[in-house]
């Protein structure tokens, strides 16, 4: 239980996937323009990451390890995640076409998103149990969502700011992301597994 709580705390704040580990920067920059799409993306990522860690963990422990095929983990994980995302995409198109439109290219991009692959690989590398792995997946994706939502809030305000012409758009977003990362530096060393 204590370990689960540490995992939650660490991967939401201390080792935040976006702001400290620098995973998943492309959706972080791409979908953070509007709060609404950021929220939708966050939910999609939480869902995909939780499911991906669950499935890849089971796949690794019950298929790859018995067959001594651990060296195939990257290929296998990518395949599993890709089919999962395809599933989410199909469901989303049916349930919420507006969100599907809003996410656009970024939903298929989750397939090859380093954040999702990292969660699957790190869960195996850290030798988490099944429960720990799923909690890790959820915590990491909540950390991602928090970064994304904070960024969306800031960018909505920056729309109204008189940002110098040369820095508008991506440039000022990256600078903001850098300062955010500096602020999250304060959590360093709070807990470790």
């Amino acid at each position: 239980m204590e370990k689960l709580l540490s995992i939650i705390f660490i991967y939401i704040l201390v080792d935040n996937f976006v702001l400290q580990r620098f995973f998943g920067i492309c959706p972080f920059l791409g979908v953070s323009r509007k709060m609404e799409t950021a929220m939708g993306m966050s939910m999609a990522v939480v869902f995909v990451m939780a499911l991906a860690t669950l499935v890849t963990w089971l796949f690794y422990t019950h298929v790859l390890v018995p067959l001594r095929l651990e060296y195939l983990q990257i290929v296998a994980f990518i395949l599993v995640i890709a089919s999962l995302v395809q599933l989410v995409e199909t469901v989303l198109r049916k349930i919420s076409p507006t969100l599907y439109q809003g996410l656009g290219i970024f939903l298929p991009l989750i397939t090859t998103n380093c954040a999702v692959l990292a969660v699957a690989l790190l869960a195996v590398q850290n030798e988490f149990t099944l429960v720990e792995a799923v909690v890790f997946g959820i915590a990491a994706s909540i950390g991602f969502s928090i970064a994304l939502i904070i960024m969306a809030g800031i960018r909505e305000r920056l729309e109204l700011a008189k940002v110098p012409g040369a820095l508008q758009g991506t440039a000022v977003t990256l600078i903001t992301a850098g300062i955010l990362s500096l602020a999250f530096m304060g959590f360093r060393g709070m807990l470790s597994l």
Partner: protein
Amino acid sequence: MNGKLVLSSSPHIRTIESVRSVMVDVLVALFPVALVAVLLFGHQALVNMAIGVVTAMAVEAIWLRKLDLFGDGSAAVTGLLLAMTLPASAPWWLVVVGAAAAIIIGKQVFGGTGNNIFNPALVGRAILLASWGARLAGPVWPVPKPFNFGVDISAVTTATPLAGQAEALKVTLGQMFVGNVAGALGETSALALLIGGFWLLYKGHIDWRIPGGYIATVFIMGAVFGGGAYLNPLTTGLFHVLAGGVMLGAFFMATDMVTSPVTPAGKLVFGVGCGLFTMLVRLFGAYPEGVTFGILIMNALTPIIDNLTIPRKFGEVKKSA
């Protein structure tokens, strides 16, 4: 107007208050703090504060390509606040780099005064902390030599009282209240900061909710989770309020009107959040002090807090989602 009827379009009610007049008030409020800093740390404090102010004003004037050095006065406040978060023994170039980074990366890239997301002075400090951490961590804080103008202050340095129980017990609460402890040059004297803070409260430039929420949260968390590290829970809480930069941050940085929420409820949430993150870093983090990080994180959350705490208009019915 000679008793004649004056016709004009709105607005009809004007205030004589301007960004400049507010910033001058802030500078006045910072005067007791600066004065105590000079009395405690001597000429090096004075030199560092001057370097901070001049660099910040010069960088802003160059960026805006205006000859008016003082401008709206916000650059001077930023430069002074940045210098106040550094040790009096900091080399001149550290203050210059910090002030330039504060103005350019902290403020001007977002569009200048009124558009920045983060408190500029704290952005400058965070950049210094990440780049020259060794100069701002460990036993680098000069021990004050009251009323000894001209003595080299960097000769005797020590760790901040926040570095651990051993360091904490070396100082008394009275010492910390007056400011006679090692630390950044503007953060040590709670007395001077309170005088400045109450001046700003009296002038109506800051809202009690931010410093109130901040300091109360620090006190409560210090008392509850400080484990009585400083004699007993109550004094530990008080210790956390007086030690380090909480007072300076609560009255002069968290209250920055551009980077804090505008709604009353939002201000309270903001203050409490600052205290919460500050104490998280202090109690559990690798850094001894968390004011910089606490306020920067809450600055980032400000747009969201504002959106969530919009007061209901009179007669407005809550929309059913």
